[in-house]
């Protein structure tokens, strides 16, 4: 089964960029995932100021550049996992947040775990 996990947090909090310790720990975590075959893909997202939102409302499509000031929580990074159960995906998400807890003091946020459709 494949899952996508998305780490979300409030971009407006004055946290600054992730600590080097967190980056290192996440790198090790990703290497472990690649080794045991659970990690298919992953990536970190730049602040929303570098992005845009394209929306369709009332029959009109419009694009608005970031930052997305009105959104409470924004995706900061994602991973695509291949695991044997939802519980495994949840456990990997728990470990990811454990790394944040250990290496980025004061950080708060969530990790959304969603199953991907497969052919």
């Amino acid at each position: 089964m494949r899952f996508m996990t998305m780490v979300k947090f409030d971009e407006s909090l004055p946290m600054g960029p992730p600590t080097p310790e967190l980056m290192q720990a996440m790198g090790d975590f990703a290497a472990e995932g690649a080794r045991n075959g659970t990690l298919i893909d992953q990536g970190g997202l730049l602040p929303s100021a570098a992005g845009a939102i394209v929306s369709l409302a009332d029959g009109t499509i419009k694009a608005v550049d970031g930052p997305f000031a009105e959104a409470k929580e924004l995706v900061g990074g994602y991973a695509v996992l291949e695991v044997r159960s939802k519980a495994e995906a949840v456990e990997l998400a728990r470990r990811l947040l454990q790394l944040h807890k250990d290496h980025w003091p004061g950080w708060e946020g969530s990790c959304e775990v969603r199953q991907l459709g497969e052919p």
Partner: protein
Amino acid sequence: MIECVTDPTTHEAIEAVWQLESTRLIAGLVRMVRDVGLAEDLAQDALVAALAQWPQAGVPDNPGAWLMTTAKRRGVDQFRRRERGDQIYAAIAHAQGSDVSDEDFLAAIDHVEDDVLRLMFVCCHPVLTPEAQCTLTLKLVGGLSTREIARAYLTTEATVAQRVVRAKRTLSEAGAALEEPTEAERGLRLTTVLSVIYLLFNEGYSATAGSEWMRPTLCREAIRLGRILVSLAPRLSEVHGLSALMELQSSRLAARVAEDGRPILLLDQDRSQWDPVHIARGLAALERAEALESELGPYALQGAIAACHARAETAETTDWVRIAELYERLAGLTGSPVVEVNRAVALGMAYGPEAGLSLLDQLEGLPALSGYHLLPSVRGDLLNKLGRHEEARSEFARAATMTQNERERKLLLDRARAPI
């Protein structure tokens, strides 16, 4: 600790930790105690302790370290409880002391590649039958339960449990986990590991017996083992080749069986059902195999053949000339008449049915192919294309009597009875 406000830590969550950790846990313990049976017992003890404690206490911050520490303590306790412990327990106590900490676990992680590879070598030890090698690899490296293995092999839990017990005893008697294979032996063992993983994959991909054509659990598990092996032996072309082959083949899992369970042949499959994630991983693995070795080995060659199909947007645009050429190289390496049957298919597609039939004529009567249902089945296909339908139908009927798989037999019988 994880706070579980709505729900205490469930057995399911603990099982998930176990599935993620059991390989390196058992592998690390085998290094320490040098006995597969004892290592598994200690690991199981740790699991039982987790099942008792975590529902209330929550999953520890580092569950892998917790399991390893608990397993080691258990080993030390057992040693102390015995008036005269045997050498194995003495070795743990000596190596680890009584106080085991997270640091020990972190140090053990540095060995994790060696440990897992050693565990694979032990599970695929030459004293074991291929069946025992497969079962033990699924159990100890794959972390599958006896029940899951029994389901995958359509047998009873008791049978699998007995197979495991017997295999572990054989290994203990041979002192398998005490060996340090030489460089030359490691190469040979690696070849066996590859063949065991491929055997698992094939048993899943094209079940030789039973009512279902595929057993996806075995395929998925083999692919996962292949990915682990890639990380353990990244300089070996064939390791990437096998990974490429399995990823590419399994990209077609969903497309090769109809809703009613009927098999769908490759050229009739809906290619939009092929899994692009597996294809991308397979093609990348093949590139690595080719970069490491210009003369591809048997797995990489089969991977290259599978890649020809994966790259073709429609069945009509398949590069059959290249596939025929790859099969020729494969036949040269393996000397396998089964490969020649496949080459006949490719020749038939590339150069016309007569080209395929003339190769099949040369194979007719080979003892290695007596009872091989694909020989008459392929001949039937080629005869059909030449308009020789009557002969084709009798070939399909002959093939139907040879296969052990019920789904496949039905498909062949349908073709044997098809109106001309």
